[in-house]
């Protein structure tokens, strides 16, 4: 790993100032994307700014139909949180399905969303649950957040502080995990807000997206069969060693139908 300067700021303002003053800086959260990239020498930041301990990034709270999760919350904490389990069990289950236990003990929700890996799990939930991404300077609605492959609406020095999820009447997440990494080959969250359904899809294209025709079909009739002929999202489907584009097209519909079937049978 190339040498770098390590900083551990004690306030959010200090973290941003350090970022602005450094040559080629990066924020460090759980490190489970950034550090492997650095040990493989695919990235060589001049300065790492550790976000651990910043109070603005900590905490889980439920208030007025919203579940709020601090950016530094680790996946294992989301999975084990009784607040999340009772307000939004689908999100606790999603977190429990990320990678493996050691990854969940380190990786954080803020790091996952800042990174926007096309196969990451949280992005499907952010879109399906109409989340708002809070940063040190503004609030970004889910629909404007994901811009492309590893590309988000964040500015270079912007810090995610927390994510506010709207609590639906019911929701379910189904993923087809890559058997080695557990990343989503395709993952779909179906969320029902009193008859208005939102569907978030990850793993299929360059970044997470909504499936508009699926949402319309399920809002009209909440039944897996309603998705039999519904149109797929108009995206460039990924094709790689793990799954062809054709296979992912198939998986998007099947994962959405499984999530719907789980909810419909309750």
């Amino acid at each position: 790993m190339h040498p770098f300067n390590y900083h551990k700021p004690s306030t959010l303002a200090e973290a941003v100032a350090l970022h602005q003053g450094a040559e080629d800086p990066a924020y460090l959260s759980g490190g489970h994307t950034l550090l492997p990239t650095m040990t493989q020498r695919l990235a060589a930041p001049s300065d790492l700014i550790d976000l651990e301990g910043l109070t603005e990034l900590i905490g889980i709270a439920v208030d007025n139909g919203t579940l709020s999760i601090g950016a530094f919350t680790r996946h294992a904490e989301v999975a084990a949180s009784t607040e999340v389990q009772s307000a939004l069990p689908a999100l606790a289950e999603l977190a429990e399905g990320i990678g493996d236990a050691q990854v969940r003990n380190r990786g954080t929700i803020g790091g996952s969303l800042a990174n926007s890996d096309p196969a990451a799990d949280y992005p499907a939930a952010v879109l399906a649950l109409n989340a708002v991404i809070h940063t040190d300077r503004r609030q970004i609605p889910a629909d404007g957040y994901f811009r492309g492959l590893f590309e988000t609406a964040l500015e270079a020095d912007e810090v995610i502080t927390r994510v506010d999820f709207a609590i639906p009447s019911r929701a379910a997440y189904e993923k087809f995990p890559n058997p080695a990494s557990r990343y989503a080959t395709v993952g779909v969250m179906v969320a029902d807000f009193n008859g208005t359904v939102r569907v978030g899809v990850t793993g299929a294209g360059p970044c997470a997206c909504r499936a508009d025709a699926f949402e319309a079909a399920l809002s009209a009739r909440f039944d897996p069969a309603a998705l039999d002929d519904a149109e797929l999202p108009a995206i460039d489907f990924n094709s790689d060693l793990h799954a062809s584009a054709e296979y992912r097209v198939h998986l998007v519909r099947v994962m959405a139908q499984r999530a719907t079937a789980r909810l419909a049978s309750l």
Partner: protein
Amino acid sequence: MNLTLTVNGAEHSLDVPANTLLVELLRTRLRLTGTHVGCDTSQCGACTVHLDGCAVKACTVLAAQAQGRSVTTIEGIGRPNGTRNGSPDDLHPMQAAFRDCHALQCGFCTPGMILRAMELVESGGTLDNRTVREGLEGNICRCAGYHNIVKAVLAAGDAMQEQSR
């Protein structure tokens, strides 16, 4: 940078370059070579240690991130140094179960398997074939196969519960 941390109960204060990984600190500086490096990229779990009681892959944690914290490695789980007498009783129940169930061949993955398995048992959930296999998702064994490892974790689960009664 200057770093203070506790490793297997002993406090250390060291000067290390900022780009030192926790696993490098353990193996190279402290000579605790029981923690292995299989992949270097958080895939295999051979480098698993406990950081404040949580199983983590030490190849994907900076030494700096362990500042002020407590680390436990495979060297730190049996009878404490100085009280060992070379008998099987020196072993932690998880180590003893791996030995009894033939849960290792080359032993390369074993320290990581054992540290993660201990956390799994200590977390107190139900232990069965499925939960153990899922719980060890982040640890790869390339020779013994998983059957006897699962057997060992289930046996140690019983022994550890017995012990804590």
